[in-house]
């Protein structure tokens, strides 16, 4: 299980290969990649800046991955989240989960990204044609996270 917070980009194929290397018991890898979109709340986004809480961020991500591992029989999981300045089309976050069968990998991957969005201390600031603004938390993200409590 590995979590990383970094400014640099990541290579999905490299991360997936690292998870699967020498583990013939893995039968499924589910992978989510979040990207910077060029539209938010009906206005153009030219740049996104991600701020985080160094120290707590890594702990929070590790705690989320640990929860997923307690809930589903996963073999490995990896979260890579970028911070700093990003442009539309850039990759923001990778969540990859490996398990014997696809059901556990899909579920754990979705759980991790849903929890990350509501529990990990990152904040997005957008640069739009009318200036910069902090992104507001979305009710839909809260609901997506809440449904795993059931």
């Amino acid at each position, binding site marked *: 299980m590995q979590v990383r917070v970094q400014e640099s980009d990541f290579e999905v194929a490299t991360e997936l290969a690292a998870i699967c290397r020498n583990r013939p018991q893995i039968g499924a890898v589910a992978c989510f990649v979040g990207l910077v979109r060029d539209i938010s709340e009906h206005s153009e986004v030219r740049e996104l800046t*991600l701020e985080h809480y160094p120290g707590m961020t890594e702990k929070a991500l590790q705690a989320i991955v640990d929860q997923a591992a307690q809930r589903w029989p996963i073999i490995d999981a990896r979260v890579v*989240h970028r911070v700093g300045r990003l442009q539309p089309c850039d990759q923001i976050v990778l969540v990859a989960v490996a398990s014997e069968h696809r059901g556990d990998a899909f579920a754990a991957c979705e759980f991790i990204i849903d929890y*990350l969005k*509501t529990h990990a201390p*990152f*904040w997005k600031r957008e640069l739009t044609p009318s200036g910069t603004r*902090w992104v507001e938390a979305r009710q839909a993200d809260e609901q997506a996270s809440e449904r795993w409590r059931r």
Partner: protein
Amino acid sequence: MLRILYFAGLREQLATNQEDLPLPTGVHDVAGLLAFLAARGGDWQHLQRTRNLRCAVNQEMASFDCPLRGDEELAFFPPVTGG
């Protein structure tokens, strides 16, 4: 000594990212500290105006009734928006 961190929009409103503060007399929990800080007036009242203000104590999400001893690292911030 308390170390208090502020993030994102709150950091900008307060024009402060970090401060060290002895536990004020009569303050026993996060809610008490918030009231103390907001009583500075001016921009500090943003602490009580921020919708859904979140708090972490020693780098874990905490509620406002979390007790304080005076040696914690605290953080105040708006709801998170990563991913």
